[in-house]
């Protein structure tokens, strides 16, 4: 599970970078823009799917006062 979340956090980072790229462009490079939009769309799709899959897990850990945990 931690791996997949790292993915969400990573994906969000990438998406934000793309948004920033668009904001920073004075004169837009269409070819690059198309690429970025494509990448962004894929990231959005993947993130949404990832979020749908997430299920909680519950682990009941017993502490033993006498064990060397």
């Amino acid at each position, binding site marked *: *599970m*931690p791996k*997949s*979340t790292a993915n*969400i*956090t990573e994906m*969000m980072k990438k*998406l934000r970078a*793309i*948004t920033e790229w*668009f904001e920073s*462009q004075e004169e*837009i490079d*269409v070819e690059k*823009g*198309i690429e*970025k*939009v494509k990448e*962004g*769309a894929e990231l*959005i799709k993947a*993130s*949404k799917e990832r*979020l749908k*899959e*997430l*299920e*909680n*897990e*519950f*682990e*009941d*850990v*017993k*502490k*033993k*006062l*006498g*064990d*060397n*945990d």
Partner: protein
Amino acid sequence: MANLRSVLHAWRESEAAKKGVELFRVLPNSAIDEIVRAMPKTKEELTAIKGIKEAKYNQYGAAILNMVKEGGGAETPKAAFGQKPDEITAISYIVDGMVLPKPKEERMLYSVSTYLDIVNRELWRMRATVKGEVTSFKEQGKAVYFSLRDAEDGSMLSVFMWMSDFALAGITLAEGLEVILEGRSEIYKPSGRFSFRAETIELVGEGAFQKAYNELKKKLELEGLFAPERKRQLKEHPIRIGLVTSRSGAVIHDFLNNLGRFGYHVVFVDSRVEGAGAVKDILAALTLLESKDIDVLVLVRGGGSLESLQAFNNEHVVRKVATFPAVTICAIGHDKDVPLVQLVADYAPSTPTATTILLNASWEHTIHELQTLSRGLIVRFEQDVWRMQDALRTVSGELETRLDVLIQPFRLLITSFNDSVLLLARQLSSKKDELHYSSKTLLEQYRQQRRFVLEALASAARSVQQNDPLRQLKLGYSILTHGGKVVRSIADIAVGQSFDARLSDGTLVVETKEKHPINDK
């Protein structure tokens, strides 16, 4: 076997306390379980158990074997007391553990030590909570000693407490202070002295708690433990949550029910959260979670008075939370005084539900952000493209205008050329009409001329017909010829000569007999 296990646990606890070490250092739980199961009778059998090596055997072997022998003795009463138990007694051994079988025939003789062991085991089963006033308090080495006096009739109970347990309570004792102790009694074998071995101690009364709370708060504040710059930021998308609270109670349900479904991994450690006993539990839970890979520690419990929340104002608990490796969230319901753990925690929301809101926040923000992004990203790009299209249109418009200027003369030429061609076509067309017209006239004239000619010819024919000599011949005239020549005068022929007379139906050959000239002039 419950009794042997209890005996071993009690023995281990006192050994650990005597040596000032942790319980597992004396004997791990697994070894105790194994001893109860295997019931070792010899050194070989005992050292075969995992966790008990030569050194441990030398230290505790005799004591353990002795306990097993006695504990096991209860299981086989025939060997120990020379008496065959009926089934009911056998069950009562198992249920009650250390019920002393009553010897019927023989008088049982115990050594002092064995007897005290048996009494102590009985006492060990009687865990109790006792309230009284503190008197003659003294610290000595690893332990504290004092007496507990009954406020009503002055009865006295001597109390022994390990320094480590006492320190955990984080209180200062003074003569006459009312306290509540929890623990078991024991007879100390070397002196035969009876004492209550207190495991926890707590102050009684709001006033005492308030005083302790204020003092500790001031102390920790001076140390800077509450400083805002100490607060750590919860990471984005937390996953692994270390949860410490009581398994029973509404709080854990509130928390779990409101925790969004974002793939959390909740590592839950059940812990008492009420009263002085909660301190040990919480500390053990925190120690356990310190070694786990968690993103955030959540310590929650419902509201209560300063007294019932004392564990959350305990110096050890507070310090443990303050130095906890992961980000901490403490939500402890309270009235007036904020529990000190809340003050040192990185986050201190008011309720378990507020805690879940805090944990869910970055997830929910991400979901919202994704929605915005999935619309915004395309729109933004579209706008850029539209802007470019606009620019293109402007440029191409300008180019067209310029090109127009260049093309204009040609366009004029083409127009005039077209005009000329049109004119020519019109002229040709009129010529054609003219030709058509004149050819018609010509034909007419020709026809007229032809008619005239034909008419002339017809009249000529008529006149020829009228003047035809043959017609004259029919009328009675004749043509006279002589020697191929027409005879026009009587002079042309001599008398006696012959000539031809041509009539309409033949020729007569005639001979001239006489001549008669005509004189009519």
